[in-house]
């Protein structure tokens, strides 16, 4: 297994702790584009720049800051951030189990998978299997980077899926826009039901994705035929820039090679 995790820690329920890593469950669609420079068709890379300097700032020279006044920041190190909720930054503690059917889809935010780290395989599978058999999901809170998430951990095809949930105060009330009680419209309702009856199918989201992709693929194929693809120039720095030591050693070796021929 070579999936690289974006977070690693443990997931626990009661006295059982399982080492896990978090991986993506959603990847951008299969057709992906690269950002290029329209002058030379070279790929672009994302870099952070300091307005005062000319060069990109490497990650170890960056720090998070919270703006308290214009251009005035309170700095926060990773260690400080982790110690805001030290009990949650490396542990997903399931506090209770729930029936996923009770969770209004309004709470669903973003899904991930958890995969077991070495030594955690057995307890991991137990949790998957037992939740699957009892039709339950685990509810937990954990902190990732700067944010605390309420999450539901559910079994899915033999794996643990982790869905971040919105907090209840993030959901907006709907009373102000909900319909006034209308007159009974039994006739209308029956007509709609008949319509629906004729349109019932099995859930198969795959067919919608294909259509979108096909259109794009057709466009790309046509374009590739019409015009040769563009190619970026090779990255070529000026000559003779090799380290002086190396160049001297190479010259010396080259002289010997020629002598021995």
């Amino acid at each position, binding site marked *: 297994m070579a999936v690289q995790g974006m977070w690693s820690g443990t997931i626990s329920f009661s006295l059982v702790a399982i080492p896990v890593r978090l991986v993506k469950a959603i990847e951008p669609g299969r057709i992906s584009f690269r950002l290029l420079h329209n002058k030379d068709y070279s790929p672009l890379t994302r870099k952070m720049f300091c307005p005062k300097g000319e060069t990109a700032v490497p990650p170890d020279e960056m720090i*998070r800051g919270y703006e308290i006044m214009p251009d005035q920041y309170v700095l926060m190190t990773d260690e400080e951030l982790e110690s805001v909720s030290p009990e949650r930054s490396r542990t997903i503690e399931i506090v209770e189990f729930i029936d996923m059917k*009770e969770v209004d889809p309004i709470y669903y935010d973003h899904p991930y998978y958890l995969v077991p780290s070495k030594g955690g395989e057995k307890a991991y599978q137990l949790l998957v299997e037992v939740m699957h058999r009892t039709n339950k999901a685990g509810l937990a809170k954990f902190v990732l980077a700067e944010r605390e998430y309420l999450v539901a951990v559910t079994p899915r095809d033999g794996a643990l899926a982790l869905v971040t949930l919105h907090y209840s105060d993030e959901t907006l009330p709907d009373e102000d826009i909900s*319909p006034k009680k209308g007159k009974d419209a039994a006739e209308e309702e029956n007509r709609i039901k008949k319509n629906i009856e004729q349109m019932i199918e099995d*859930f198969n989201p795959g067919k919608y994705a294909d259509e979108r992709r096909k259109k794009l693929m057709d466009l790309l194929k046509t374009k590739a035929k019409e015009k040769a*693809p563009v190619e*970026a120039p090779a990255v070529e720095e000026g000559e003779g820039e090799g380290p002086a030591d190396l160049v001297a050693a190479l010259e010396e070796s080259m002289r010997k090679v020629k002598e021995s021929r």
Partner: protein
Amino acid sequence: MAGATIWKGYIHFKDTDVAVKLHNAVREERIQFHLLHKRDKVRLRQQMICTYEKQPVPAEEQCKGFEVEEGKYVIVDPEELEQTAPESTRMIEVHEFVKTEQIDPIFLDRLYYLEPDNPEIHGKGYNALVRALKEMGVEGICTWTIRKRSYLGALQARGKMLRLNALRYADEVVPATSLGLRDVSLSEKELKIGGLLIEKLTAPFEPQKFENEHQKKLQEMIEKKARGEKVVVSAPRRLKPTESDQLLQALEASLKKAA
């Protein structure tokens, strides 16, 4: 209060048309950090750098390329991409209905409220559709386009409301089977005790019980630091993983504790 109206249109299938207004149903608030340069505490700016010139490239000089061979690209401009998107319409077109329980939750994306538009004229249809969906236990798989972007979604009824739950495209969902998990054998005893434990720890879903406590603590820490007070750094708690051969024991102890 629900969010402002994002879009107006109508739900359509067969000979049914229901006029609706689309509203946000979720609003997120979070503490926002910026990335600074350690040395001079100046806010960093993200820039796209040309790998050839090693220079920042302004947005108007960026284009999208599809790699057809190593280092070779077909350039696609935004107008062409737009052509592949379905035309903007005022319609939420329902293509089919599926049983609610068939919709795999991993597909669920953002949710929107649908308010009846012109209820004097269309209110009847709106309420009838709510009742029909609820009684039949189905949701309508539909597509719509807002600002040249097309969406896939499920039209659902909840309470008195119609709602649109945007769905992710199937080619974006990573199948769990691709994680390559190995099968480990479990004893019936482990499964049984595990099951009992879960039943013991089960509670109704009450989202209002959960607050974003971290957000408050973080705010406090920021204020403390802003006053120039020292902040104590503590190491994150790390739990000792349960060894495989201790699993049954841990489950039994858990069950005892829960009882």
